[in-house]
């Protein structure tokens, strides 16, 4: 059985977080009653005309620059013609032969193009409950979303595994999030991803027939959907069958891939230049201004954090991809006096665990300075790691200064030199002679009950490594 190489290209739609729609002044909204944000233009009333949103163009330029694209000094809108109830004019205003941005790269994936267009309305299927299109006889259309500005990003087929697809989409999301131009929330539809998937035997020069996967509305579903499609294609090829070029819908409930082939004739979008919109010109000055205002992007930030603070690449990546966390980290490093940045970074997961991964730590009672001080106390063995976790609990619930908490709660580490710990260790050995014998016989696992005894007795103030050293010493090891 030959090995197969999957080849994946991604098409991503990003809803821009402008105040108004792409071509009219209706406010963007989420969760409002149907059809309350509509006007002649976004409803496609006879006689209405589009006028382009300046902010949307600026956001598109920012995305293009963040993706390393060239920005077209002159681009143009086209009409993409198709009939569907969610498409009010029966044409979508999009870009065709000259997109506003092209020829970029993000991480290990090249960007083919990024263009501006308008979103469709929302079709609500009255069949209720199931949400499956084919069950319902009637649908209703809510035009609130119609005309929302979108940037469509098309990659080159540079992705070769489901994991890579997921990781790269995460990089893209964080990059756009850093720009502040979109909510990039897949569950809300402000980030949507389709994948073109093909497989070919290893060493083959030509790509296989590709299929298009739609409806993967989370990072996990993207990975799973692409994996399922790769497996399906390989199985067909192994069985001597061919791959049909088609659009597939990934059913997240069953994991099935269902063809969306319609009975209608193949799409012929009849693109032509939008006569209602003159040419879109972007000056070099405008591009320079947007470029100058770009924030530090995640990929650059990861490199900088790693180089500046000596963080492991994975940890640097993690902080770079979580903007608020990264900011908190750097604030803590700045506030700390000589505390090891790596140790501060290593303590961050404990903080996230307590406040939740969606919460900006800066919005909690824990100040960066207090957090850094806490890490410093552990680093100097002034308190044990366990005591450190207790202090962190207090900081998260009540705020305050770690040193004061340690003093108030008597959490200071028991120093090895003052003999107190020796006595507790001796008591632990006396209390569990079986375990002591096993440790003495070389069974390191039996150490657990002894250490646990000491920790209980000292309420976690003892340093675990010191306890282990004392146990072995008292047992003559």
């Amino acid at each position, binding site marked *: 059985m030959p090995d197969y190489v999957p080849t994946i290209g991604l098409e991503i739609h990003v809803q821009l977080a402008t105040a108004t729609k792409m071509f009219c002044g209706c406010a963007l909204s989420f969760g409002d009653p149907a059809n309350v944000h509509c006007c002649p233009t976004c409803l496609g*009333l006879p*006689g209405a*005309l589009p*006028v382009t949103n300046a902010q949307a163009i600026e956001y598109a330029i920012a995305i293009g620059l963040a993706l390393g694209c060239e920005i077209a000094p002159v681009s143009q809108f086209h009409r993409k*013609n198709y*009939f569907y109830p969610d498409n009010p004019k029966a044409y979508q205003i999009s870009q065709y032969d000259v997109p506003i941005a092209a020829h970029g790269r993000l991480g290990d994936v090249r960007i083919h193009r990024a263009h501006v267009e308008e979103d469709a309305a929302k079709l609500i299927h009255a069949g209720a409950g199931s949400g499956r299109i084919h069950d319902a006889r009637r649908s209703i259309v809510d035009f609130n979303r119609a005309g929302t500005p979108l940037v469509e990003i098309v990659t080159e087929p540079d992705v070769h595994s489901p994991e890579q697809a997921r990781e790269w989409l995460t990089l893209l999301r964080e990059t756009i999030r850093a720009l502040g131009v979109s909510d990039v929330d897949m569950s809300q539809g402000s980030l949507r991803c389709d994948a073109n998937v093909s497989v070919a035997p290893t060493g083959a020069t030509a790509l296989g027939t590709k299929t298009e996967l739609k409806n993967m509305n989370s990072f996990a579903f993207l990975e799973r959907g692409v994996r399922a499609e790769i497996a399906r294609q390989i199985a067909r090829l192994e069985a001597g069958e061919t791959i049909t070029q088609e659009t597939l819908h990934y059913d997240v409930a069953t994991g099935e891939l269902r063809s969306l082939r319609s009975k209608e004739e193949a799409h*012929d979008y009849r693109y*032509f230049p939008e006569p209602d919109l003159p040419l879109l010109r972007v000056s070099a000055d405008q591009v320079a201004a947007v470029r100058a205002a770009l924030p530090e992007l995640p990929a650059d930030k990861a490199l900088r954090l790693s180089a500046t603070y000596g963080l492991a690449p994975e940890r640097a990546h993690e902080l770079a991809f979580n903007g608020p966390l990264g900011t908190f980290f750097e604030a803590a490093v700045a506030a700390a006096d000589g505390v090891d940045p790596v140790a501060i970074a290593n303590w961050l997961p404990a903080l996230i665990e307590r406040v939740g991964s969606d919460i900006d730590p800066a919005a909690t009672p824990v100040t960066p300075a207090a957090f850094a001080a806490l890490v410093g106390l552990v680093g100097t063995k002034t308190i044990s790691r366990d005591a450190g976790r207790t202090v962190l609990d207090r900081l998260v619930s009540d705020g305050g200064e770690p040193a004061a908490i340690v003093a108030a709660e008597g959490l200071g580490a028991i120093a090895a030199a003052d003999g107190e710990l020796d006595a507790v260790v001796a008591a632990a050995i006396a209390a569990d002679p079986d375990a002591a014998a096993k440790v003495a016989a070389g069974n390191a696992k039996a150490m657990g009950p002894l250490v646990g005894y000491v920790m209980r007795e000292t309420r976690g103030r003892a340093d675990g490594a010191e306890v282990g050293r004392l146990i072995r010493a008292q047992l003559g090891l």
Partner: protein
Amino acid sequence: MSDTILELSAAAAAAAIAAGDLDPAELFACYRERAAADPLNAFLWVAPPGPPAGLTEPTAGEAATPLAPVPLAVKDLFCTQGVPSQSASKILEGYRPPYSATVVARLGLPLLGKTNQDEFAMGSSNENSAFGPVANPWDRGRVPGGSSGGSAAAVAGGLAPWALGTDTGGSIRQPAAFCGIVGLKPTYGAVSRYGMIAFASSLDQAGPLTRDVTDAALLFSQMVGADPRDATCVAFPDRIGRPTATDLAGVRLGIPSDLLEAVDGLDPAVKANFDATVALAGSLGAEIVEVSLPHAEHALSAYYIIAPAEASANLARFDGVRYGLRLGGEQDLLSMYTRTRGEGFGPEVKRRIMLGTYALASGYYDAYYGTAQKVRTRISEDFTAAFGQVDLIVTPTAPTVAFGLGAVADPLAMYLNDFYTVPMSLAGIPAISIPSGLCDGLPVGFQLAGPAFSEARLLEAAHALEQAIGFDGAPARAGGTA
């Protein structure tokens, strides 16, 4: 009294109102009564009795129009808030828009009525209206031209002091010619298209249909100006004043002989009238210069690709979902679309949607749409070159006078009516048609065209010629009341 009032030009009526000599309510009532009795089928909707509902308030931030309230007839395809606006199509049955077109709101004149037209402005005879043809007030057995046939007939027949029309390939100028009135197609981008039910977006322009050049200048002067709702509409560079020229001294008039001779059906009587008018212009001091527009004879072909292509997209929104006619809605989606559109559109509209869809379809785009766009470039270049030699270019407005209702059955023959008007539309330049006399009792139109935004010059020249020609439109107005 009312007959005297109705003889006033719009500018004269406006002056009388401003001077306090004419009660605008009385003027409105006289016209309203005339329009309600419409013997020409020129109106699709007439204001109800009583004081006029002003069209709408002028758009916020815009100075109120200085025009005195002389009633205005408006082509059906302009959206008028709460008033039927169907572009004379069955597919917009019962549609009353929730907003008004910018130009209508900007003028702020009392709305006399909505005028008949070819459905979606597609036609040259007004026979394509879903509401029946319009009669020409000079001879009710003949067409008024199209597509702004209702507006032209209403003004010529004395049913309205002035009217708004739209011109895509000749739809103001040709009916103005057939009805013996003045019709101006402005420079593309001079007048907002917001609220005009679109036919072909890169060509459509609103313009005045009036009894004389002075009225045209007055109405046009209040129509122009940039509109934040129309990205193709720009600020007009000049102020349009009342035209005063009585001679053409120093004006170089170009005669595009290659274009004039390229059409088979140029009526010799129309040609003779044209030659006489050119001679008259010469006697007024104009220098007559031969110019060449080598690609203009292909304008019609390019136009009948570009306009239907744009129309095929513009008219795709009539799908039975949000407004207007719906048929087959109880069936499946595809049936709803195809039945609504198949039965809602008339034959000419369907023909142009088919033509435009074909021209844009995969595999044909370059051969048709792409080629037509290049021809359009050539035509513009021809005009630019010609305007290096002359100030204005003149042609007959149409190859013939008004023809009989039902006399032209072949679509292609009908399209040839636009032979002299379409080149200017493709180039986006302004052109005006003025009546230049009668042939066998029917009016003939004389077209003057100038470079983009040369309307002021165009109106002056048209005014000088108009004074010299001394055309009498009264017979049509008398006919209109018969």
